[in-house]
């Protein structure tokens, strides 16, 4: 059953204010001097100068992965824009000369004003083409236009991906 | 749980209880509108039941729950059926279903009491007289669905502003568009598509 919480009794020590004020002052002073003299325990990070390294799962800026030959892995299957709860991915599909993978995006835009970085696109991608693991977070921009990331931009953050496309047993 | 609460309610009010079910272990009563307040009172006061905690009130607009007519789906194109908008035609039975959830502290059990009302007579007796905690929940249902609660002490809009037109959680309320209080031109100078369309 429930456990009754321990509630401090209003004894003389509490009622006379000062002892607890003194205890409190001791505790704050400890932090003060520790931080002033030893520079230890500072919890903040001086952002533009220092940056935290995000854990590997961190969902940051999107990037589009390459094939070995440097072309975009995306085949414009639209699964990412289907899975996107914010409707922020705009794709226009086009044909390529490659008979193996006939389809590639001619336009691939991400509207970062809408994007909520949920990672559903990454999860939905059947080609390992879009990822959010760039480790950079989104920096704000001065105008709306700059918040649209185009294909070139996304590819520039990309890297070659090693996973097979179209199947191992192709 | 030795005995389902809905059984004892049904025994007590055979006329008011229209239907019971225990889908997924949730004890559910569908009651008539007249029976709502007596049943809530009974649930609260009966020492064996002790449903004294108001959990939640909400509403379901059942207008889209009915199956789309058979002929509307194309046998050769199964995808069509899954991507059509809900059928906003007739629904079987009354349109709104106000759902009360109560919790029994001593039994830990939850019971769901539902009332169905027609759209043109969307009035439900308020449960606030039984448990005051239904107050805001009912206001929200009024706000979002336009179901009125007779005897509610303070039936005003809850989340939306008083000038708001319509009840947004109804299925026939458009999902997209603006409802401006004044003319709000969009970037092209056109009126923003909204309710008036």
């Amino acid at each position, binding site marked *: *059953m*429930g*456990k*009754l*919480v*321990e*509630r*401090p009794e*209003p004894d003389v020590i*509490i*009622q006379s204010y000062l002892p*607890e004020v003194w205890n*409190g002052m001791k*505790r704050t002073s400890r*932090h003060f001097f520790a931080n002033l003299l030893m520079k230890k325990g500072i919890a903040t990070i001086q952002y533009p100068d220092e940056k935290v390294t995000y*854990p*590997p*799962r961190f*969902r940051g800026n999107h990037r589009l992965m390459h094939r070995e030959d440097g072309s975009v892995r995306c085949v414009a299957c639209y*699964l990412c824009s*289907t*899975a996107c*709860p914010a409707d922020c991915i705009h794709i226009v599909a086009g044909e390529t000369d490659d008979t193996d993978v006939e389809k590639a995006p001619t336009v691939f835009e991400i509207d970062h004003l809408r994007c909520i970085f*949920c*990672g*559903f696109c990454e*999860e939905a991608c*059947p080609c*390992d083409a879009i990822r959010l693991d760039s480790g950079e977070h989104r920096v704000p921009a001065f105008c709306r236009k700059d918040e649209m990331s185009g294909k070139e931009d996304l590819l520039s953050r990309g890297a070659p991906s090693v*996973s097979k496309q179209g*199947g191992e*047993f192709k | 749980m030795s005995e389902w609460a809905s059984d004892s309610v049904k025994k007590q009010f055979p006329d008011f209880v229209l239907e019971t079910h225990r*889908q*997924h272990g*949730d004890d*559910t009563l569908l009651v008539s509108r007249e029976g709502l307040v007596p049943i809530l009172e009974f649930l609260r006061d009966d020492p064996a039941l002790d449903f*004294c*905690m*108001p*959990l*939640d009130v*909400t509403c*379901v*607009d059942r207008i889209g729950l009915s199956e789309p007519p058979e002929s509307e789906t194309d046998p050769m194109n199964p995808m069509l059926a899954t991507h059509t908008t*809900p059928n906003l035609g007739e629904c079987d039975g009354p349109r709104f279903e106000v*759902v009360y959830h109560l919790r029994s*502290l001593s039994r*830990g059990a*939850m019971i*769901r009491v539902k009332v169905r009302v027609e759209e043109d007579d969307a009035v439900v007796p308020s449960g606030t007289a039984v*448990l*005051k905690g239904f107050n805001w*929940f009912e206001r929200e249902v009024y706000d*979002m669905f336009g179901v009125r609660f007779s005897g509610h002490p303070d039936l005003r*809009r*809850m989340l*939306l*502003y008083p000038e708001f037109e319509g009840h947004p*959680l109804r299925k026939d*309320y458009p999902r997209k568009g603006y409802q401006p209080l004044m003319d709000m031109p969009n970037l092209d100078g056109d009126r923003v598509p909204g309710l008036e369309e």
Partner: protein
Amino acid sequence: MGSKAPQKAPGADKDLKTEYLTINMGPSHPAMHGTVKIILTLDGETVVDADPDIGYLHRGFEKMAEAGTWTKVIPYTDRLNYVSPLINNVGYCGAVEKLLDLEITERCKYVRVFISEISRICDHLTAVAASALEVGAFTPFLWAVQAREELYFLIEMIAGARVTTSYTRIGGLRWDLPDGWVERYEACEERLFRMLDDVETLLTRNRIFIDRNADVGVMKADDAIGWGYTGPCLRAAGVDYDVRKAVPYLVYDRMEFDVPVGHKGDNFDRYLIRLEEIRQSVRIIRQVIRDIPDGPVNVDDWRIVLPPKDAVYNTIEGMIAHFENIMKGVQVPAGEAYYSVEGGNGELGFYVVSDGSGQPYRVHVRAPCFALMQGLRDMIIGGLIADIIPTFDSINMIGGEIDR
């Protein structure tokens, strides 16, 4: 006890003819987090009437949820109670799984308990911190937030984001726990207790803090139940009700923990209960770490969870399942279910209705704060304007959850 302070401002004598002052506290007011407005009628500094007005953060969660697939609702749930998003994730997915009659894997249950408790600590730390801040003590606030920050880093490591976690999936989780999470958690715990000790030193026995909170915003047990209070606010009134004990979900029935209850239901009790619950949560987490089994975190059914990426890339079977899953969403059989978890502020319930398609027909959130807020009026009337702030804070209203 000096806290027997008059509940009337000096000079607000009834013999004196005074004029009532009506002011809007909020929606843009430093203490009204989450944008809330309270329309106050004041007699001097005494609150004569109060009308909390919510809805400034209304985003139409329930309408939006009806627009996409069942899975697409998960990111929206992050934004309900944005202080403990993981509990919302767990609650929502649990509701859909209940509708699916789906039994998730053992490991997944433990992980869900783990993340729920981490979130609960975050939530309570925020509430404790803010209750200090609202009475002017800035330092404990930042110390508590610092402790919370540690946990946020842990959450980020697990879920990839600090607040917008979207970590659970219907039938499992986005990922299993990462390597090194136990070590990381232990480091967090050590820091957490150090910071908690600091915070408590400044607050718990400080008479100014006690005076501000004790016997302020009292909500008696009967009233609290009547208003639909749950969570720490109900327990502060002495009612032993915790969803984790009353209706055990996941593996809470295997966990040993106490449900702290308070003495009289005032702000100070709520503060103490939150501190105690943090300790109980840590106790649960230790049991999770001790007991967590190995194994998969997702159910073995491609109709509900996405196939592993390896199968998607290499086999047509995996690819098809992946496509179907994303195009149509999880096909949830028609029906209705109510599933509740113990959120940071009380019983967080999800009432879901399905019409049998891949889209939710109705998703309703039983937000604990909503019930808490409707009792606020009773708690603040008769008090002073300065009492509103700690009282309002001690119910820890979260705008995202209340307005949805």
